[in-house]
């Protein structure tokens, strides 16, 4: 379980997060929605330990991430998988090398097992015949799939998705969302998705939290969010659905 308590962050005096509180239960898929530049990615970067808040804490299974040593933080990160906004594939490596990179660097598997697992991970995300290509040779949608395959390869308990469908056409967008649903069913990870895609994300998430003005202003199931009376949520969800 991940608990965020009173998280605050400012950049050059501008408050981006102003006391974010939220709880993410195990195996739950939570979508964090909100306006562009509203601090969603900043919140995610705090959750994966890439940023330190000015105030507040992030508890992972009861332990405060901010009080952890580097070694302890690395142990927590071993249970995380991250799909970055721009995929963050290593551009000097082939697709297959990218996918099996965590296995090669973090496990003692035999090369034959690494090859098997790599092929299976690519099949899981519906990719074939791209093993020897480089990231610059494949499309944006395929890059997101490869990033998901790389995130899944160590079978993490939690996967963070930073706007996994931004810039993709509606068909690819839906296929990525279906992929998240299917892999979640198969691997049972906790999913945290930063997204703009409303209403599409409602079909993927068990729970939706809206970040506005540096705070979580609404949180609940997709149906609860759709029927929320808060004018900001209503306007955001309504405008996005229109």
């Amino acid at each position, binding site marked *: 379980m991940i608990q965020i308590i009173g998280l605050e962050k400012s950049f050059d005096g501008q408050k981006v997060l102003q006391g974010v509180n939220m709880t993410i239960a195990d195996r739950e898929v939570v979508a964090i929605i909100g306006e562009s530049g509203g601090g969603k990615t900043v919140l995610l970067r705090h959750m994966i*330990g890439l940023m330190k808040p000015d105030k507040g804490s992030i508890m992972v299974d009861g332990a405060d991430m901010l009080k952890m040593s580097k070694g302890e*933080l690395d142990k927590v*990160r071993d249970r995380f998988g*991250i799909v*970055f906004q721009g995929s*963050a594939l*290593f*551009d000097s490596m082939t697709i297959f090398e990218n996918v099996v990179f965590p296995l090669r*660097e973090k496990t003692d598997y035999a090369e034959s097992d690494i090859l098997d697992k790599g092929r299976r991970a690519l099949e899981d995300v519906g990719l074939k015949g791209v093993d020897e290509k480089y990231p610059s040779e494949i499309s944006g949608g395929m890059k997101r799939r490869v990033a998901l395959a790389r995130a899944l390869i160590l079978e993490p308990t939690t996967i963070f998705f930073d706007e996994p469908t931004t810039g993709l056409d509606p068909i690819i967008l839906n296929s990525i969302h279906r992929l998240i649903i299917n892999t979640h069913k198969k691997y049972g990870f906790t999913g945290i998705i930063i997204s703009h895609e409303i209403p599409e994300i409602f079909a993927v998430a068990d729970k939706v939290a809206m970040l506005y003005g540096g705070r979580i202003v609404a949180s609940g199931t997709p149906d609860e969010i759709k029927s929320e009376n808060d004018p900001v949520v209503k306007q955001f969800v309504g405008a996005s659905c229109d």
Partner: protein
Amino acid sequence: MEKFIRILGSRALGTLRTMGKMVIFLAESLYLIVVPPFKFRYLFRQIRFFGTKSLMVILLTGAFTGMVLAIQLFYTLRKFGSDALLGPAVALALIRELGPVLSALMITGRAGSSLTAEIGIMRISEQIDALTTMALNPLRYLSVPNILAAVIAFPLLAAVYDVIGIYGGYLVGVKLLGMSSGTYFSQMEHFVEMSDIRMGIYKSVSFGVIVSWVSCFKGFYTNESGYGAEGVSKSTTEAVVMASVLILIWDYFIGSVLV
């Protein structure tokens, strides 16, 4: 006045902070060099990057440096009636000074700049964040192989620079200016000592550390130079300028100590 002092103080603090970060970056990289796991695959790739790929520019600049040296020294030495010392003069200038320094400056331009740009692009495209969030130390993959590869490649390239420079000097001195080849080489054997060669090696090794350290550091913190492509371009320029200046400053100090 108060505003001026405040700006000055803020700049001084910023510079001190950057220097501190640079020292920590180098110390952590040097520590990781001796702590396993070792990434030999990346080391061999970077030796090729620094070494093999710089060979052409080293051959070309080395040959012309030797040729220019021979022309200039020949006319100077002739005024003192010592033109027979052309061989040792070219060899000593190259082995002790010009070989290590000019080869290091050439590698800075060719490899140092592209190293900063490569790591800088990795930073802005979140590839370094990806390594961090995989609980892998990015310095082990980015800085350690480059520092080691530079320490191996720089002295070898400086040696190539020296040899080709001496041959360039031979072409001008013997083939063009009519010196005897026996005089050119025999005097060289007599004047060049092992301590001169050792000095060249010490210089090259330290220049290798400087160039790889500065290039990796500037790439790693490219987002502090600016945003996006502009940040990468700025950090690349800064890396080349800083590495080149440090090479010349360090050359003076090491030269004073080892003279």
